[in-house]
C-alpha cells in the first residue's frame, strides 16, 4: 500500500518560508476554493495556512543552535482526526494515505481539530469549514503537468531541497532511504498516531584527522632521508629553466 509523505530535513531548512508562500499561493488558487485571509493589510490580520515554519533556539548561549521547523499535517497512518468526524468529511485515502477533508461535507464543528495533537488543522473563517494540507493532491496526479512538476508546491519551492516527497511504504523510495539512513523520526511518537511525515535531525559533520594522515608516513621521497626539494638558497629548477 502506498503512503505518500513529506520528509523534512531540519539540517538543511533555512527558515525562508518559501514553502509557506508557495503552499498558500497554490492552494488559494486551486479548484478547492481559496484559503482566505481576514483583513490581510490591516492591524488584526489573520489567515488560513496549511503550512507554517516555526523557529526554535536549542541550548544556552553561546552554545545555541537555531532550528527552523516547518509544520503541516503529518498524514498520520492512524489519524485520530478521522474517526471522530461525525459526517465522514475527514477521511484518509486508501490508495495513497493522504488525509483529506471533503469541504462540501464538513459542518465546521472543529471536533477533528480537537482530536489532532499537532494542531495541523485550521478552520477557514470565511468558508466555515476545516482546512488542512492536501499534499497538493490536485498537483501530484495532474498528468497535464510535466512529471517533475507532479510534486507538492512546498517541495517545488524549497531552495535547499529540505523537503522530500514520496512513498514511505516503498523501501527503495528516496523518502524511505532518507528516513532509514539519515535518522528520520516522527513527531510526538507517544500518542501512537504513526505520522507519515518524518523529520531528519540536525547533523554535525565531524572529520577526525590524525597526525599520520597529515604527513604520509610511507612517502618514498623520504625513505633515504633526502629532501625532495632543494634547500633554501640553492637554485631551483625555476631559476635554471625558462618555460
Amino acid at each position: 500500500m502506498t503512503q505518500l509523505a513529506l520528509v523534512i530535513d531540519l539540517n538543511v531548512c533555512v527558515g525562508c518560508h518559501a514553502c509557506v508562500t508557495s503552499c498558500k499561493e497554490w492552494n488559494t488558487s486551486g479548484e478547492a476554493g481559496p484559503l482566505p485571509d481576514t483583513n490581510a493589510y490591516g492591524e488584526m490580520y489573520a489567515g488560513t495556512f496549511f503550512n507554517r515554519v516555526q523557529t526554535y533556539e536549542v541550548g544556552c548561549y553561546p552554545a545555541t543552535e537555531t532550528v527552523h521547523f516547518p509544520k503541516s499535517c503529518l498524514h498520520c497512518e492512524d489519524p485520530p482526526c478521522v474517526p471522530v468526524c461525525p459526517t465522514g468529511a475527514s477521511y484518509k485515502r486508501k490508495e495513497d494515505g493522504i488525509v483529506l477533508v471533503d469541504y462540501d461535507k464538513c459542518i465546521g464543528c472543529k471536533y477533528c481539530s480537537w482530536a489532532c495533537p499537532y494542531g495541523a488543522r485550521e478552520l477557514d473563517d470565511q468558508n466555515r469549514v476545516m482546512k488542512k494540507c492536501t499534499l497538493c493532491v490536485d498537483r501530484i496526479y495532474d498528468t497535464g503537468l510535466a512529471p517533475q512538476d507532479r510534486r507538492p508546491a512546498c517541495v517545488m519551492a524549497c531552495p535547499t531541497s529540505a523537503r522530500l516527497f514520496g512513498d514511505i511504504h516503498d523501501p527503495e523510495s528516496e523518502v524511505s532511504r532518507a528516513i532509514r539512513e539519515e535518522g528520520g523520526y516522527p513527531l510526538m511518537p507517544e500518542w501512537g498516531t504513526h505520522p507519515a511525515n518524518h523529520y531528519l535531525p540536525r547533523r554535525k559533520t565531524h572529520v577526525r584527522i590524525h597526525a599520520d594522515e597529515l604527513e604520509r608516513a610511507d612517502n618514498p621521497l623520504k625513505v633515504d632521508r633526502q629532501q625532495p626539494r632543494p634547500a633554501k638558497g640553492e637554485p631551483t629548477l625555476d631559476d635554471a629553466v625558462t618555460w
Partner: protein
Amino acid sequence: MRPAASVILLTTLLGAGQGLFLAVFTHQAHALLGVISPEGAKGFHGPASVVALALLAAGLVASFFHLGRPERAWRSAAKWRTSWLSREVIVLPAFMGTVFLYGAMHLTGVNPVILRLPGGVAVDASVVVGVAGTILAFALFVCTAMIYACLRFLREWHSPLTVANYVLLGTASGFTLAAALAARLAPAEAPFFAGWALAFTVLGAVSRGASLARNARLRPVSSLQTAIGVRHPVIRQISQGFTAGSFNTREFFHGQAMSLVRSVKWLFLLFAFAIPAALLASHLASGSAVVLAAALVAQMAGLMAERWFFFAEANHPQNIYYQAVA
C-alpha cells in the same frame, strides 16, 4: 481549550433536560412499585416532560451555534460507527421523541395498560416509553461525555470520571429542577425530588472533586522535545511562524488569567454543589418552596461555570507549538 458558549449551554441544558426526565420517570417507577402514592403527583408528569423537552430543544438549538455550517448538520449522523459526536446526534432526537411521546401520554391520558404483572401491578404504555427514555437518557449522557473522554491527548478529559461527572451533574440538576417544578405543580412530591437531588448533588461533588484531584496531579506526556524531536533539555520557541493570530492560537487557549480560572473553580464548587446541597437540605427540613427555586438557579449557574472550567482546564498538546509569537 477555549470554552464556547454554545457548547456550555448545550451540555448543561441537555443534562438538565435528561435529569428532569429521569426524575419524572423515577417518580412514576416508585409509584408503580407502590413505594410512594401516585396520587400526589397528578398533573406533574405531563408539564414536567414539556419542560424537559423544551430544555432538550434549547440545547439542540445552542448546538447549531457551534457549527460553521449549521445547514449541513443533518450529515453528522453518518459516522455513528466511529464518532461519539455522531452517536450523540442520533440519540438526542431519539430521546426527544421518546420524551415527547411520554409527555403526550401523560397530558392526553391516552395510556393503555399493556400488561399486568403477577402482583397486580398494571404496566401501562407510558412505563414502557419511560423505560426506553431512561435508557436513551443514559445513552445520551454517555455519548456527550465520551465526545470529550475519548480524546486521549486531552488527558484532563480522558478519564471515566468525565462520564461519571456528566451523568451525575446532569441528573443532579434535573432532580433539582424537578423539585422546583414539583413545588409549584405537586407540592407534596417536592421533598421526594429534593431528596434525590441532594443525593445526586453530593455524589456529583464527590465525582467532580475526584476528577479535580486527578487533573491536578497530571503531568504532561508531550514536551517541546517530543514535539519537534530535538533531544535537548533547553529549547525555546523564537517564532510560531506568524505574528497575527490563527485558528490554533484562538481555539485552544482560554486567554484568561490563571487567577480567574482558579476563581471559577471555587465558584462552581460553591454554586453547583455547596449552595444547592445546603438549600435542598433546608427544603427537606423546612418544606419551603422558595429555597428550591434558589437551589435551581444556583446549581444551573454553577454548572455553567463548571462546564467553562472543564474546557479551560483542558490543555491541548498543540499549545506546545504556540508559545512565542515572534
